[in-house]
């Protein structure tokens, strides 16, 4: 499960500490002034919400509401009904005056937990819809393709026609397109859980079973921070591309990229001895729909690029020493 994002409390550290003790989801950090709080917000990757007093030094809660897009909980110790109305109208997530309710600081903590829960629920709902759509696409498109493929097989048993082969080839391409479409839907899944992954083992898993192609792997591949399922998809797409373009007897080599200065591993490369890609065409290979093959969908490497981007990796394409293609995947977080 994705860890809860932290929140920031702007105001007295003593009050903030009391609230933090009751917060259940994520950490609560503190900033004495709104300016410090905004700096912390900008520096943070992602936050759940901001809690602020009405009038901490220099910048009041209304200026803060304009400056940030996060949910803001106004928790003032000197409130009024007029202030509450103004804060909520200005876009505050909620308004609490802890001094007017029993266990006020616990109530502020509960409001933070509520924000976190709403965010998780929102993200989960999107994932659920994607999964539902993906399942629908999968079944409703693959079933008729199976039926048509079966019809072709039965027709071939009765007569011989070159048109049947063409239709069969078209169906194979459609199936491939659907597969790539589902991969893309999977890519939009919002939850990314990075973890250490043994690259050598991941490559072994993703290498197509029963292939006549040769896989040559350096013995000391690093462990990288990635999400295993997406890394599998990235590797599978690259290997499939090598075999599709280099032929079933292609040799694919995987090795480590290292920093020029320190010789420290920074990523990995996948190279083949296939026909390669023209230098002029290389910048386009990661674009959606780009393909040089009549059987290709032009989505495989675009998905590879998306996944690499998701991990914060840098991917480039160049010529391999054997005259084929070499993909370099750099800026990996090596564990």
């Amino acid at each position, binding site marked *: 499960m994705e860890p809860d994002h932290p929140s920031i409390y702007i105001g007295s550290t003593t009050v903030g500490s009391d609230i933090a003790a009751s917060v259940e989801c994520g950490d609560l950090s503190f900033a004495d002034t709104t300016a410090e709080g905004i700096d912390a917000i900008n520096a943070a990757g992602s936050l759940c919400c901001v809690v602020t007093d009405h009038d901490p030094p220099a910048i009041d809660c209304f200026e803060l509401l304009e400056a940030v897009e996060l949910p803001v909980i106004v928790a003032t110790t000197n409130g009024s009904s007029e202030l509450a109305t103004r804060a909520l109208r200005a876009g505050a997530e909620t308004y609490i005056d802890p001094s007017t309710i029993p266990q006020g600081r616990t109530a502020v903590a509960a409001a933070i937990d509520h924000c976190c829960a709403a965010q998780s629920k929102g993200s989960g709902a999107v994932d659920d819809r994607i999964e539902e759509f*993906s*399942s629908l696409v*999968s*079944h*409703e498109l*693959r*079933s008729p*393709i*199976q*039926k048509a*493929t*079966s*019809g072709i*097989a*039965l027709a071939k*048993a009765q007569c011989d026609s070159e048109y049947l082969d063409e239709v069969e080839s078209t*169906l194979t391409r459609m*199936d491939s397109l659907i597969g790539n479409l*589902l991969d893309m839907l999977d890519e939009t899944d919002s939850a990314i859980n990075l973890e250490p992954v043994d690259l050598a083992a991941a490559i072994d898993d993703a290498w197509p*079973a*029963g292939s006549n192609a040769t896989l040559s792997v350096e013995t000391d591949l690093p462990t990288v921070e990635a999400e295993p399922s997406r890394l599998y998809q990235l590797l599978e797409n690259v290997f499939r591309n090598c075999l599709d373009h280099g032929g079933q007897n292609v040799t694919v080599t995987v090795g480590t990229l290292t920093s020029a200065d320190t010789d420290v591993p920074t990523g990995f490369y996948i190279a083949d001895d296939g026909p390669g890609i023209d230098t002029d065409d290389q910048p386009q290979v990661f674009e959606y729909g780009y393909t040089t093959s009549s059987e290709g969908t032009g989505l495989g490497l675009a998905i590879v690029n998306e996944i690499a981007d998701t991990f914060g990796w840098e991917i480039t394409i160049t010529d391999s020493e054997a005259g084929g293609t070499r993909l370099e995947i750099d800026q990996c977080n090596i564990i």
Partner: protein
Amino acid sequence: MADNSDKTILIVDDEEMVAESYELYLQDDYNTIVELSGGGALMELDQREVDLVLLDRRMPGMSGDVVVEHIEKWEMDFQVVMVTAVDPDIDIVDMPVDGYLTKPVSEDELVDAVERALAIKQYEDLIAEYNQLAEKYEILTAEFSSRELSSRDRFAELESQMDEMEAEIAETVEQFSDSKLSDAFSRLH
């Protein structure tokens, strides 16, 4: 590959054309029966011995999921391979099936899945039989000295039978085209 001409495969798919194509792929090497509904499949299974069921998952009326539940409940001893357009999800962990193919399937994919499932069944049967013999071997070697046993023809037959079965198990394991599965089984026995 082993001779499977005595094996019977029940093909269950509500799309007649799809079921017939599977039959076309398999009929040269196996006996095949086609059923177009989950209910019909259960009636067939109640009346006939089969070795493997190819089962569609989403069918009008009784789904493939319900069919496998009945098969498990009735403790029927054959292989089940789900052939479906539904992508596998984590729920297949608890599904009592021996294989899962995602449509559309090619002739090679279907034939490979059937051969693999039957080879796994053969392996399981051999291991069960071998374990029975090994158990008896353990009992006898604990009870008698090797000198006493060496003079008993029946014990020599038992040893020979175990050697033959070990060879047969190794041969079965080699049938698996997937080296990972083959390695796993090799480690197991």
